[in-house]
């Protein structure tokens, strides 16, 4: 083989290797520039008659971006808000972009961007663009209460949603419950149950289910703590472990949370809590769900 051919054979794999290096160094900046340069309003002008198709393409990109950042991106979601903004500028009636976008933005890392203010802003934009859509208004009410802890506004928005055609009858009573009982766990459970029942199969349903399982885990942890106290009252000392409760016949099943991870027992305080390594564990939420 001639020298030229050898050089060619050797250079072919160099191209992707160099590209990988460039992507690793510049990839993030390039993507951010792109999102900044092309706003939804500009794209609308560039594609008259095809706005919905371009919105679809950007939505696919948003979903892929969210998925890839969640798995490989270390929970960095800088482009998420601009992408959702582009999608909803291109198609202001794409309900799913507001609803899922708000979840992607509001949930705590690594599930979401941990930016509930922007999530709420996306839902507010959805409500502005679709004033008769009760689902978006309902989600805005839920998010104001659940993620921002704003019970007054959350309840007001839910009351507005309840008055729209097609809204479920229980929205009004839920708004009243939020207003008068504030952020108790039962209210939170009603909200996520409502979200779970309405949602079709997909991330929205899974997210609502995760919240419900988390609330169940909190209930179970509290019940276990009560059993520890009852054991202490009866024997005069705290158990050394939760297994000891089981051996004493106080506890029938293994003390695991709904994800299958054992609960953590603090012998000093005599309290039971969700393991930080459990997929259900999350830091204290606003809205008083813990």
């Amino acid at each position: 083989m001639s020298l030229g051919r050898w050089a060619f054979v050797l250079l072919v794999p160099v191209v992707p290797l160099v590209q990988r290096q460039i992507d690793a160094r510049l990839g993030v900046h390039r993507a951010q520039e792109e999102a900044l340069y092309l706003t939804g309003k500009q794209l609308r002008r560039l594609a008259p008659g095809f706005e919905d198709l371009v919105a679809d393409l950007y939505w696919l990109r948003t979903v892929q971006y969210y998925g890839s950042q969640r798995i490989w991106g270390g929970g960095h979601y800088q482009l998420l808000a601009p992408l959702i903004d582009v999608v909803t500028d291109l198609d202001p009636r794409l309900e799913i972009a507001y609803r899922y976008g708000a979840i992607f933005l509001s949930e705590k890392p690594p599930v979401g961007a941990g930016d509930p203010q922007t999530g709420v802003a996306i839902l507010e934009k959805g409500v502005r663009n679709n004033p008769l859509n009760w689902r978006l208004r309902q989600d805005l009410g839920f998010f104001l209460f659940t993620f921002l802890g704003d019970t007054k506004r959350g309840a007001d928005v839910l009351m507005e949603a309840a008055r729209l055609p097609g809204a479920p009858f229980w929205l009004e009573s839920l708004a009243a419950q939020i207003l008068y009982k504030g952020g108790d766990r039962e209210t939170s459970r009603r909200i996520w149950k409502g979200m779970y029942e309405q949602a079709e199969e997909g991330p929205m349903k899974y997210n609502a289910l995760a919240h419900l399982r988390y609330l169940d885990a909190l209930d179970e942890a509290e019940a276990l703590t009560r059993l520890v106290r009852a054991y202490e009252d009866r024997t005069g000392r705290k158990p050394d472990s939760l297994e000891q409760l089981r051996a004493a016949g106080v506890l029938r099943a293994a003390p695991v949370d709904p994800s299958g991870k054992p609960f953590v027992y603090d012998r000093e305080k005599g309290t039971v809590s969700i393991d930080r390594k459990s997929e259900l564990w999350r830091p204290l939420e606003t809205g008083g769900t813990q």
Partner: protein
Amino acid sequence: MGSGLNRILAVAANTYRETVRERVLYNLVLFAVLMTVSGLLMKQLSIRQDERIIKDLGLAAMEMFGTLIAVFMGVGLVSKEIERRSLYPLLAKPLDRSEFILGRFAGLGFTLLVNVAVMTAGLYLTLAATHAVFDPNLLKAVYTMFLGLLLVVALALLFSALSSSMLAAVGTVILVVAGHFSDIIRNVKQVAPGTPDWLSQGLYYALPNFRNFDLKSRVVHFDPVPGSDLGWITLYAAAYLAVVLGIALTVFRSRDLV
């Protein structure tokens, strides 16, 4: 009258055969691939937006393929015949120039009808394969899209009767693109405040408004499309087509072909 219609139909049939020979309908293969791939992938990629994306993609592809065919086949309908000198033996026969123009228009119109009909069937099949509910409203968007394509053919035919294929293509593309930006032309004063009203309004009404024929977004969002809307769009298309074809006939009649 009857023989005149027969001659128009004969030219139309020839035009249709010509487009088939030119492998214009090959775009259907591309459309089929696009629909199959989107039907298979969209469910996983889009989070339950597969039905909407398949509709958007199918309707947009129909419009894009149709417009490309209408422009690039349309611009050759007359000018190519002149450039190849195949028009002269035709006109030596008892065939009026207006019959030739109308036949060419009808022939390419029929090609587009076949094209759009097959693509519509493909779109419905893809939607059925993804278990989407049958939505007859899509046909309303397809109908108005077809009217828009007929208008593109008429414009291409007019330019084709006036000049060479190359110039005809440039002129038609400019008019089609401008017609899609008609809303921007109407509101140009917001961007360029110095623009006189008579210019922006004059251009807005003179240029073909292709946004009129675009019901894609409405049907995909399940908005009602009343029959009266379809009636007005049909009337607009008929009036504009009559004007454009009338000018094309006059130009072609007065053109010195020797």
